[in-house]
């Protein structure tokens, strides 16, 4: 593999403004993988280096999320592989901002009897709720059909790694006195380039959305108590 650019530990602290305590704590919580700690001999002795891009990006994301979520939940969200069989409770999804009956209807989700949603359903609800103010009903339908038909295991695994956006595009084609508008939905990296006539109507950061959904699951699974604690004694 290509030789990644490395950054020394003390430089990481300087660049990100975090403390040693935070760095070691995050490592302990599994937020920074052991494999990223690269030990190299330098003239001052052993020093620890990290893959530059990965560590800086990871720390920024932890900093963004740490105030709103417990560290223990973050580990699941940031590091765990996405399970395609993940089930999300409808109850919780409904509490997300912008999710109402019209969104569920647009996603073809029957609100009453179904208690849990598949990960694809959850992504649909999330994407539709974010796009509903800018998109037309038939476009929302296209969005949900795209997510259902195209988001499978391999793509789900790519989402946490490569940033992928779901984008809703429109293009007007005219000629011979007739003009028509075409709507397209694509799942592509955010910096994808289109021809100049394409208009981006809306975009949803799928990684962010997936993280939110996973957080929801993590928060739920953390609730039940870890079993009883027997009274302590020393003999």
């Amino acid at each position, binding site marked *: 593999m290509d030789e990644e650019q490395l950054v020394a530990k*003390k430089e990481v602290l300087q660049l990100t403004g975090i403390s040693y*305590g935070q760095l070691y704590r995050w490592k302990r919580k599994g937020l920074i993988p052991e494999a990223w700690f690269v030990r190299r001999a330098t003239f001052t002795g052993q020093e620890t280096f990290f893959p530059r891009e990965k560590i800086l990006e990871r720390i920024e994301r932890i900093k963004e999320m740490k105030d709103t979520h417990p560290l223990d939940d973050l580990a699941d969200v940031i590091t765990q592989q996405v399970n395609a069989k993940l089930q999300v409770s409808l109850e919780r999804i409904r509490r997300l901002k912008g999710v109402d009956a019209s969104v569920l209807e647009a996603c073809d989700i029957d609100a009453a009897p179904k208690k849990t949603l598949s990960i694809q359903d959850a992504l649909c609800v999330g994407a539709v709720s974010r796009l509903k103010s800018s998109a037309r009903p038939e476009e929302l339908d296209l969005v949900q059909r795209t997510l259902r038909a195209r988001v499978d295991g391999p793509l789900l695994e790519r989402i946490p790694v490569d940033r992928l956006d779901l984008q809703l595009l429109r293009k007007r084609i005219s000629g011979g006195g007739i003009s028509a508008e075409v709507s397209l939905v694509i799942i592509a990296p955010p910096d994808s380039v289109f021809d100049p006539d394409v208009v981006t109507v809306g975009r949803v950061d799928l990684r962010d959305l997936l993280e939110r959904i996973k957080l929801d699951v993590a928060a739920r699974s953390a609730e039940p108590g870890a079993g009883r604690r027997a009274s302590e004694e020393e003999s």
Partner: protein
Amino acid sequence: MSDERRSISLAGAGKLSGGDYARVSISGAGKVDGDLCAEEIRISGAGKLAGRTEAGQISVSGSGVFDGPVTADEMSVSGAARIEGEAKVKEMKCSGTFRVSGNLLAEYVKVSGHIRVGGNLEAEIFKASGGFDVDGLLSADKIEVHLGGKCEAREIGGESIHVERGNFREKGILLDGLVRMLWRGAAAELTASSIEGDEIELEDTTADVVRGKRVIIGPRCHVKNVEYTETLEVHDDAEVEKQTKV
């Protein structure tokens, strides 16, 4: 989960084929062949557990050998225990001798005996008044060491790291002598290749490099290189080859 679990007691020479129990107590020479899951495991004789072990509480006052990974809420060792594999123990107390061949991942670790870890020892709070030997990284938010024997780790990292000479001396020469004898005459000191933390206060420590925000290098320390970002104090009776404010 709701079905009733049995309790079993191995006294004399006994064998158990693993399984799910409420309470397992080994007071003679007992062996568990498969994976064991129990709310409570007590070893006061000689116990050998061949599989993986999962328990609420484990106490070893005799000798316990765990040939597989161990997961427990609480574990206390006042005898001798050895784990071949990784140990995940929320609350670990060791007043005897304890060896883990892999990583020891915990929330709270208290060592007044001796602990040896082949991998990393990571906890939220680590308190030692005995000795330790960590082949990898010793990391905790709070590390508090009262040197009571030879203490070694390749790397030490955390938020606050406090190392001071143990207070055996104050209790008289006899106890001090006894402690020295127990640890084969080894001096009560800490050795590490690197020590990194936000607040660091050291005594009797030898290290290649100490990096921190606020650092105090106390008596009888030998440090090749100190890098600090805010403050540094070096005791008269300490040796620092190079110090840099970064």
